[in-house]
């Protein structure tokens, strides 16, 4: 399972990121109970669940925001323990958090390269001088390749609408992810055209072989883009649905507990 060119090798169904028996409690509240889950290369997995089902907790647990109380995480076939979101990011797992985590006073280039700044060659770079033209050029190239339009790369994000900021956060994740992209509610608060752009981006990332884990409330978006739908309810992975066979009603029933799981969730 080790990495001989793990990128861009299409959907060979290899497990890229997996969890086994993940549990997490906050005081008396058990937010996650024995969650088994897998993301395989070249697929879009949707993770759905009602408010408080544990979706964001699960994302935080697997990306190093905090550590699960019990259970194992495997990454590319090996057990891992991410100490911080940065740690996960260094391994090629990029996350778009629900609260976006952009710096509104920096411009799009500054945000996209935040923590990954390019420095000028030679002595000037050693003195800490940024290579701003290069960062801008690389941003323009990558965005063009991803077919993402950003209004003005040189303006602070505080002058952008919420949807445009979302676009920058999503573009940043997609630009840097080499193994997995995780998106927590990326289409919430977006206009119709922007939703299309994000869903299209998700498909395009998937087609390069990089799996996407997509958390959403929005059933049409989920059924539109997902290859597999995993349902969390009250901290448990209750079932897995196939968007080609199941319907939105099935998903809502599983989320709310109107129907008990059939089959055993995701393994």
């Amino acid at each position: 399972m080790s990495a001989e060119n793990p990128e861009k090798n299409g959907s060979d169904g290899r497990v890229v990121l997996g969890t086994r028996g993940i549990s997490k409690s906050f005081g008396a509240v058990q937010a996650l109970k024995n969650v088994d889950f897998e993301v395989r290369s070249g697929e879009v997995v949707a993770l759905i669940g009602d408010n408080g089902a544990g979706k964001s907790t699960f994302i935080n647990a697997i990306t190093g925001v905090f550590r699960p109380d019990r259970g194992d995480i495997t990454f590319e076939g090996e057990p891992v323990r991410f100490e911080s979101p940065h740690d996960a990011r260094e391994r090629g797992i990029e996350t778009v958090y629900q609260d976006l985590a952009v710096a509104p006073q920096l411009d799009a280039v500054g945000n996209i390269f935040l923590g990954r700044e390019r420095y000028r060659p030679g002595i000037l770079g050693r003195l800490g001088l940024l290579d701003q033209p290069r960062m801008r050029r690389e941003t323009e190239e990558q965005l063009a390749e991803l077919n993402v339009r950003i209004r003005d790369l040189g303006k602070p994000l505080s002058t952008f609408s919420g949807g445009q900021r979302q676009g920058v956060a999503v573009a940043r994740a997609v630009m840097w992810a080499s193994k997995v992209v995780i998106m927590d509610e990326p289409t919430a608060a977006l206009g119709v055209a922007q939703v299309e752009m994000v869903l299209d981006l998700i498909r395009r990332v998937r087609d390069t072989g990089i799996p996407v884990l997509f958390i959403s409330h929005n059933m049409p978006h989920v059924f539109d883009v997902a290859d597999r739908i995993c349902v969390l309810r009250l901290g448990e992975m209750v079932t897995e649905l196939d968007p080609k066979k199941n319907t939105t009603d099935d998903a809502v029933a599983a989320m709310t507990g109107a129907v008990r799981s059939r089959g055993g969730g995701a393994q």
Partner: protein
Amino acid sequence: MTGPQTDPGQAPEQEAQPGRRLAGLSSVLIVGILVFLVAVFTILNGTAFLNFGNFVNIAVDASVLLLLGVGMTFVIITAGIDLSVGSVLVLSGVVGGQVMVALSGTSEQVQSYQFPNQAIGIPAGVAAGLLTGLVFGLFNGLLITRLKMPPFIVTLGTLGIGLGLAQILTGGTNVRFVPTAIQSQIGTKEFFGFLPVPVVISLVVAVIAGIVLAKCGFGRYTYAIGSNAEAARRVGIDVDRHLLKVYALSGLLAGLAGLLDLSRFNTTSIGAHTADNLASISAVVIGGTSLFGGIGTIIGSVVGTFIPAVLRNGFIIQGVQAFWQEVAVGVVLILAVFIDQRRRSAEERM
């Protein structure tokens, strides 16, 4: 799901306008105010105000405050504050002065203004003064980052500690018998006969700091932390470490300012700097740096430092009571913060 915008490329251009116009306004406004003041005093006083010698006076007056303002700019961009700068300035001057006095000769020699060992005493005093500033800055930074205490409270505490220690060290009287060479060679020396050394030192520091803030990774992280510390943390920036450096820089520059002050007057001025913290905060905020963090420039702080200096100078030449300067600076400060707030709320509406 049907948000107000329909096109991802260019959504609400018109909504974005007010914020941007105000942002532009504040930087144009401060330069405009400075130009306006110079023009008014020139019309009122002619060449008594508008001459090179007088401008040099203004620059010398502003040089100490400018050093504090440079450090303060970094601190405020991180959404912090440093109230201790005036005290650190005084303590650094006291420590530097006392080391110079102690090492430059015996007490009999220095009391008769003989400084046989000043070649050792002066550099040692300079080092001791800078070190004092640096240590206080690090202390501020450690309390803020390790104990998670608000910068306002931490630096209010070190303001008292610094001034108290300075008075304990001196018994409340200013340091006397400081080697006169530091005044003749630094404080009142002029390069090429017209460029005062304190002004050159301050401007060199300001230019370097301006480049670091605008063009270097250090500056980028400073803005990022003030803009959204959590976002900076998530991309792997060591936020605490960076804040420690920023407060250390502010302390170090306060130390340098203390030495500059010492060199100008050849003695300390313990009682004269109690309002320096507020004066430098005012200068920085007038210069367009946002107290909410994430926004600010060194050039703005330079202009913001010169507005009070020009006012004071102009009022003195005009024969107006200099106290009016404080009234005028207060008005400008309130105006600057008002504009900043409007800018922020215009942004948040989007």
